Structure formats: C-alpha cells, structure tokens
C-alpha cells in the first residue's frame, strides 16, 4: 500500500516470505549507519578469521607434505676408504639398490654435485678437489610398499665398507614435532580469532539493536508475542551477519586465489614444491563458508537475546 513498497502479497510477496535472506522484513527499520557499520565489522573479522583458517590449513598441509617427502626418500652415503675405488663402490651399491623391491628410483650424485653441496661450508669445488669427499646416492622409495630399510642398510654396509643408509628418521621426527607445535599454535590462533569475532559481533549487534528499542516496545504493546518480535530481528541481523561474512570471506578467498596464482611462479612455490595446492583448497573454502554461516547465526542469536532482554525489562 506504500508508494515505495508494494503490498506483501502476490508472487513477490510469497517469494519474499519464502526467501527471507534476500529481503528485509519492513517491521525492522534499516538503519543505514549502524547496519553498515555492523556489516563492515563482520566483514573485517570474517576476513581475518578466514585468513587465519587458511594459514592454519597451509601450515598443516605444508608440514604433512614435507613429512611425506622426507619419508619417501633415503640417502646412501659412501665415505672414501683408502685404496678402494669409490666410483666402483657407487656402481655396486646402485646395483644392489636397483635390485631391491620397493625402490622406485636411484640417483648417484657425481663428485661435482657432492662438492657443490659442501660449497657453503668448504668453499668452491675447485678448492676441495683433493679432499676425500663422501659421495651420495639419492634413493626414492615406494611409500606404499617400502623395502626393509634396516636390512637394506646392513647388506649395503657388508658389501661396501664405509657405506651407510640414512632414512632421515631423526629429521622426520623433529619435523613432525615442529609441525605439530606449529599446527597447535595456528589452530589456537584460529580459535581465538573466531572467539573474538563472535564476541565482537555480539556487541556490535547489541549496539545496532539499541536504536530498535522503541520498535520492540511498540510491537510488544500492540500485541505481538515475544517469539514474533524476536524472529523479526533475528532474521534481519542474521542477514546482515551473512552479508558481512560473504564480503569478508569472499575477499579472503580472492586474496588466497591471488596468492595461489602468484605462488606458482614464486620462491614460495619452489620452496614447497607443490604450489597449486598451497593456498587454496576445498577445505579452506568450506571452513570460510562455515565461518560465514557461524557469523550469521551469532548475529541472529545476539539480536534474539537482546529482544528478549528488552521485552523482559518492559514487563
């Protein structure tokens, strides 16, 4: 019946009732300033929560990938043994390794490659030409059907004195402990950010509700029951919360996508070895949407509590 608002019947009236998230119930005033402020606060906090979530998952994923990488590789080290030809020993050990089930590749590093690895400590390869440099064989194993590394190490040592097999177990354990600690800190930070987000949204919603006290009073005294009044505000503020959440969460996902694209050609990508899965996966998107829905629920519940508190004071 209004000039600028049609009667709430007919097709669009029914559609609006069916899709409350996409329309504002006119009983609740849309305060441009407080509503926008609430949307902005929710957007910023959701953005931070989504980024923290992304960081935690990034940390978890990277640590897991490193552990898998380390567990899938072992190294055989051959120390020079007096008159024995180290090149012959390398061939002999390589043959043993290639003949062992569960080993997918064997790559012996040349003397130059070994010297290059020592360069940071001993200087240019030319200056250590006469030193007895240990030689390395990089062995990639099939993690689904790994060989018996203890037995393999023993047989290599028996055939070639001075040869030893390093399965990186010590480093894998250390890395595991480090990544566990990192994960605990990351998820702790995520929990704190979500808690802070929830509390801030509760207070921001209550602040935005302060201007609606008169509406609550009028509705109460003209015969609206408490549930009806609470439902009006709950849906209004839940919609505001979801709007803010979509803005903040959407911005966070866009940023993660940009980082993903950038990582493909960056040092970070080289560092992890798997840039395409670092910064964005379905887990991050799901968690972000979870945060958005959570934010809407918190805003709706906070407004509902405020309505009941206000009505309680009226009586």
């Amino acid at each position, binding site marked *: *019946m*209004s000039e600028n*608002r049609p009667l709430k019947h007919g097709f669009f*009236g029914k559609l609006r009732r069916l899709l409350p998230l996409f329309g504002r119930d006119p009983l609740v005033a*849309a305060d441009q300033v407080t509503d926008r402020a609430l949307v902005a606060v929710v957007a910023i906090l959701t953005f931070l929560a989504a980024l923290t979530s992304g960081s935690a998952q990034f940390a978890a994923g990277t640590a897991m990938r490193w552990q898998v990488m380390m567990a899938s590789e072992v190294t055989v080290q051959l120390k020079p043994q007096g008159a024995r030809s180290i090149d012959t020993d390398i061939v002999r050990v390589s043959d043993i390794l290639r003949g062992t089930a569960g080993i997918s590749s064997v790559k012996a590093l040349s003397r130059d490659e070994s010297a290059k690895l020592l360069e940071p400590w001993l200087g240019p390869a030319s200056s250590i030409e006469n030193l007895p440099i240990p030689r390395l064989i990089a062995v990639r194993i099939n993690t689904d059907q790994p060989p018996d590394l203890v037995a393999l190490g023993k047989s290599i040592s028996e055939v070639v004195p001075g040869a030893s097999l390093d399965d990186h177990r010590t480093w894998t354990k250390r890395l595991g402990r480090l990544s566990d600690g990192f994960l605990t800190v990351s998820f702790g930070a995520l929990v704190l950010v979500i808690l802070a987000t929830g509390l801030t949204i509760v207070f921001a919603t209550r602040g935005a509700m302060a201007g609606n006290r008169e509406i609550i009073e009028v509705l109460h*005294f003209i015969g609206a029951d408490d549930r009806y009044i609470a439902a009006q505000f709950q849906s209004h503020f839940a919609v505001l919360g979801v709007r803010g959440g979509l803005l903040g969460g959407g911005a966070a996902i866009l940023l993660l996508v940009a980082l993903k694209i950038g990582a493909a050609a960056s040092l970070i990508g080289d560092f992890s070895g798997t840039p395409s899965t670092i910064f964005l996966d379905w887990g991050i998107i799901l968690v972000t949407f979870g945060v958005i829905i959570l934010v809407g629920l918190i805003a709706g519940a906070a407004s509902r509590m405020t309505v009941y508190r206000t009505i309680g004071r009226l009586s």
Partner: protein
Amino acid sequence: MQAFPHRSVGELVRFENVGLRYGVAAETLTDVSFSIEPQSFQFLTGASGTGKTTLLRLIMQALKPTRGTVVLFGQDTSLLEKDGLTALRRRMGIVFQDFRLLDHLTTYENVALPLKVQGREEVTYRAEVTELLSWVGLGDLIHAKPPVLSGGEKQRASIARALVAQPELLLADEPTGNVDPSLARRLLRLFVEMNRSGTAILIATHDLGLMDQIDGARRLVLAERRLYVEASDV
C-alpha cells in the same frame, strides 16, 4: 464504523487495593480500587505527577503492582503466563502520549501493524484499514510516513492503530496534549464515535475543558497517591 462483535459482558478491568512502589521509596499509588465496564467512557485525571501514566501502564501490564489484584477481562493477571498477557493486550488498544508510530513504515503500515503481528494476511484486512484511515481523515495520507505528518495527523494515525483490531478497551494517554483546541475537539468526537461502536474508553488527561465536553463520562481522579471515582452524571 459498525459495532464491534463479541463484547465482554463482565468488567473489563478491576483493581482491588492495588499499590505500587518503585524500589524502597514510598508508594506511588496506594489502595487503588476501581473497575471499568464494557462500553463505558471515563476520564482519568489528576495533576501532573500523580500517577496517571503509571495507572495506565498497570492496566496495559507494562508494570506489575507491588500489592493488590489486577483483573483484566476476568483474569487475574498475577496468574497469567506471557502468552496469556499477550492475548489480553490484543483486546486493548493503546494511544501513546508520544504517538509511538514507526517512522520507517507508512501510515497504512503503522495502522495495520496490530493485525499484521497477529499473523493475518494483508488481503484480509486491507479494505478495513483503508476504511478506518478514511474515517479518521487520513485517507489521502496512507502512503505518507510519520516524519512528514503533522502532530494531529500522527495522533489520528495513533488512534487508528489502537482501534484497528477492534479492541474492547481503549487506553489513551493525553491524546489531546499535543494538539490545538479545535483538533482536540475533533479527536474527542472520534473517541465518542468509538465508544458508540462498543469500545470502552479510558482517557488520561489533565485538561478539564476537554472533560467538560463529554456529558455522562465518569471521572477517575488521582490525588495524593489515591484514586477517587466520581460518579457519572447519567
């Protein structure tokens, strides 16, 4: 307006030795006893600060008495749950001193609000709201919002909102306090028309001239925390 159906036959309101105090202060109202009959017309009067609005708030259940009994529509309010109180409020219409119209709604939407909150579909009340708005002289302003209405127009919209659900009892707090004498007389005629249609009226006012315009209206006078009932002339 046609006469309202389904009227109560007993008392609409009965106060028995009602007292009210705020905190530990002395009682604001003491031993208040009176009743309001269906289709009756009465003024509640007294000097400023004697408790007229407080008494109205006790009737509309915005306040609970410290002692005594308040019976509304035959039900002891101290025994009622929230849903019961809401049902009683739907049988009352309230005209607030400061109108209490919602600024973001049109006149039509404000007036239709009591029906909307009862869950009625708009198609079932559109015609009667429009008719009521015409009856109070706001037929041309149904699309206007309160900020652009004059004081008198707001008051009439407020009265229409109080009436739209066809209440058995109408409470009006200083309904002519913000309007000029000419408009006050017109508003008073509205209340008389409502009363003839079957609604009991209780108007809180300190305007003696206003009360003199209605022959036969009972006067409830608040003074020194007590209520004195003056018999009606008829």
